[in-house]
């Protein structure tokens, strides 16, 4: 499966990319995070504390145990600070 992965705010800065296309067999968001962490230190650092990371699947907020089947766009970002 091919996923478009987006990063925002300090996750984007730590990873050094706003978005990338990833081919993966990860079944859940947590599996995908484990794959990304294993890639390089900058990913491991960005995902070192999942309590401060939020995820959206196809632009809807989701949990880390959510399945990725049928998903096209995954976004990782810190807790939101709008208003």
């Amino acid at each position, binding site marked *: 499966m091919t996923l478009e992965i987006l990063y925002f*705010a300090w996750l984007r800065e730590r990873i050094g990319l706003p978005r990338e296309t990833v081919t993966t067999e990860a079944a859940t968001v947590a599996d995908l995070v484990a794959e990304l962490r294993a890639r390089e230190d900058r990913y491991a650092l960005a995902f070192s504390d999942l309590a401060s990371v939020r995820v959206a699947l196809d*632009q809807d907020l989701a949990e880390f145990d959510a399945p990725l089947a049928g998903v096209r766009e995954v976004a990782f970002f810190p807790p*939101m*600070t*709008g*208003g």
Partner: protein
Amino acid sequence: MQIRVQETPFDYGAESARFTDGCNGIGAVVTFCGIVRNDGGALQAMEIEHYPGMTERALAQIAEEAARRWTLADCLIIHRFGRMAPGEKIMMVATASAHRADAFAAADFLMDYLKSRAPFWKKEFSGDSAEWVAAKDADEAALGRWG
């Protein structure tokens, strides 16, 4: 329901007037405006990043939820992104209803939800430092008020 996400400044007075004039048969309008605050005077600028597409979608969902909970004639959300100086207006909400209770409650609800459920991130620039604003536990806790 009117949702606008934009980089350019907006005219709070004109937007409030246009919103109010556009509603028929109402008895109350509540407006709120968020402004770049300069605590201690050191802040030079604030930059707001957002997630184009999801931002509009999240704001629409929040506005739809407000319209389900209260009787509203209309509501307006304008939120800026990009770089802003202290004193600049960041965002506004307006709600219109027959009576003030619904208009106040819906505006309060919109603000609570768009602080922690709409994908915006603030970065503050002061002196040589640039820091992402951390989300406050109180903002997350505020959502509990609405059940």
